């Protein structure tokens, strides 16, 4: 199967899955609006509209983080609880198609929220429209990396407690420890380089830059690109190392 065929399968399955979710649980589409909104509200009450553009840019990046981390519980449930990974494993379905179609499906259900926050972020940051494709590329990159890691981790878990524990680690590191909703410069100077250890930091920084919200130092951009290159390799390795078949 060549890359184009694989991509076609992934989008096809993702489309089927996402439309089915949207049809049967329309409330599902509200989640990705509400989660950043609650954070936005708290921060707004606390700091006024000073950080509004950062918060909105964060809400855009959040859409990829959310989809890429929530799939961990999807994969784990399919494997441990529904036992459907067995069904797919013993079929022509490929692990990459299985994993990325689910990631993309989750992302598709976040698209309405992503578009809304993107429009608001553009409005408040006065960024030109041509940054939109750049931001989409960054979101897709983050989605692919997090989905790969989620899939890899899900093939290692064996019980429900593992699922909650690992799920929390994912959300925490990708979402709270990374400077997604605030500028990296808000961190103490010594901690700033370490922030790039987390997968969301690079894409978030570049997104904030694209919106024109901050002018990062050259080393920050270099570290962001280096971290993204490393995560691209890690994502590929994670997909290969995922235990589609058990020992």
């Amino acid at each position, binding site marked *: 199967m060549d890359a184009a065929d694989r991509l076609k399968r992934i989008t096809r399955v993702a489309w089927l899955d996402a439309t*089915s979710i949207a049809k049967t649980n329309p409330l599902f589409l509200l989640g990705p609006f509400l989660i950043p909104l609650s954070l936005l509200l708290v921060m707004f009450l606390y700091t006024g509209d000073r950080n509004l553009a950062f918060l909105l840019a964060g809400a855009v990046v959040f859409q990829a983080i959310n989809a890429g981390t929530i799939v961990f519980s999807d994969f784990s449930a399919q494997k441990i609880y529904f036992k459907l990974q*067995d069904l797919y494993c*013993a079929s022509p379905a490929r692990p990459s198609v299985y994993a990325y179609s689910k990631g993309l499906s989750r992302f598709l259900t976040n698209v309405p929220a992503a578009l809304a926050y993107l429009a608001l972020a553009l409005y408040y940051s006065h960024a030109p429209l041509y940054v939109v494709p750049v931001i989409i590329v960054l979101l897709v990159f983050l989605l692919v990396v997090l989905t790969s890691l989620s899939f890899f981790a899900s093939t290692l878990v064996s019980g429900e407690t593992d699922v909650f524990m690992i799920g929390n680690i994912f959300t925490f590191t990708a979402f709270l420890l990374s400077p997604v909703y605030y500028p990296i410069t808000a961190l103490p100077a010594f901690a700033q380089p370490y922030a790039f250890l987390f997968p969301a930091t690079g894409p978030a920084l570049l997104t904030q830059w694209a919106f024109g919200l901050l002018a990062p130092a050259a080393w920050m951009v270099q570290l962001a690109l280096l971290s993204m290159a490393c995560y691209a390799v890690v994502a590929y390795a994670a997909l290969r190392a995922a235990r589609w078949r*058990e020992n």
Partner: protein
Amino acid sequence: MKPSTTIALSAQSVFKSYGGNEALHGVSFDVRKGEIFSLLGKNGAGKTTFIRIATGQLLPTSGTVIVSGHDVVSNADSVRELISLVPQDARVIKSSSALEFVQLYLALCGHSLADSRRRAFEGLNAVGIGSFAGVACNRLSGGNRHKLLLACAISSNAPILFLDEPTVGLDAQSRRELWKTLAGLRRKGRTIVLTTHYMDEAEVLSDRVAVIHNGVVAAIGSPQQIIAGTGFELRLDVDASAAAGLRAPKGVERFEFGQKIRFVGAVREVEALAKRAVSMHLPISVARANLEDAFVKLTGETAATGEKPTGTASEKGAGDGRGGNGRG
């Protein structure tokens, strides 16, 4: 390896241990192309373990399984292109519709949107739940949810189907409908490997069966060969409350059987016993010995002696349908 024109699956000395627990202790047999082949065995005998190995879900500890010429360990993806599975314990409790569930499976397997939709309808109709296509999976009854998995397997065009206890939870009508469907698939040249605890099912459905016991193939052959291999021909059922005076002659096995006592053996001995029962005015029923009688004999020793099922039995006895390496 060059694919055989007649062999769909060939297992050679398959061992599998889970930690210290050895589930398979050198399982060898062949499945011919286009046959319905049933794996029988008590709970925990290793049927699911074998199916998981043969379908690329689980690595064997040692041994080889070749499916249509492809080694399932080194060339699993080629094997996966040719198979479809109904897992024993999958749970379909999603909120998506029945049609969407099957369609998603087919799309994952590479079918186009239109093709997967058409096939999904066909699959649902084939298992008799076409009218539930638009119903959410989690609103279907348990048996109908199970049929969704069957619909997935049937609607794929996989030449080899693995069905792990496909009729669990199905009503009598549905069970017979499914048998008919499977027989139809067989006529179209598909190979079906299934496991079941229903011996009547194995008997009416299978070209051949293998009994796995103590981690090895204890018997293999057509249901008739398996029965003949145990020496069983006729059985006699008598009410347990009335059978006290009835002793089993040499060569006749006696089984406690619910509220009945069942005697199974060769025609001559069982007929003699039946005559004695009639002379004692006991109500009796006599019938041909069936696969269940043979199965209980083949797998009964462990339970009777309380021996630990650690897989020490050897594949002895190459007589009709008994033991052997399962080839030919």
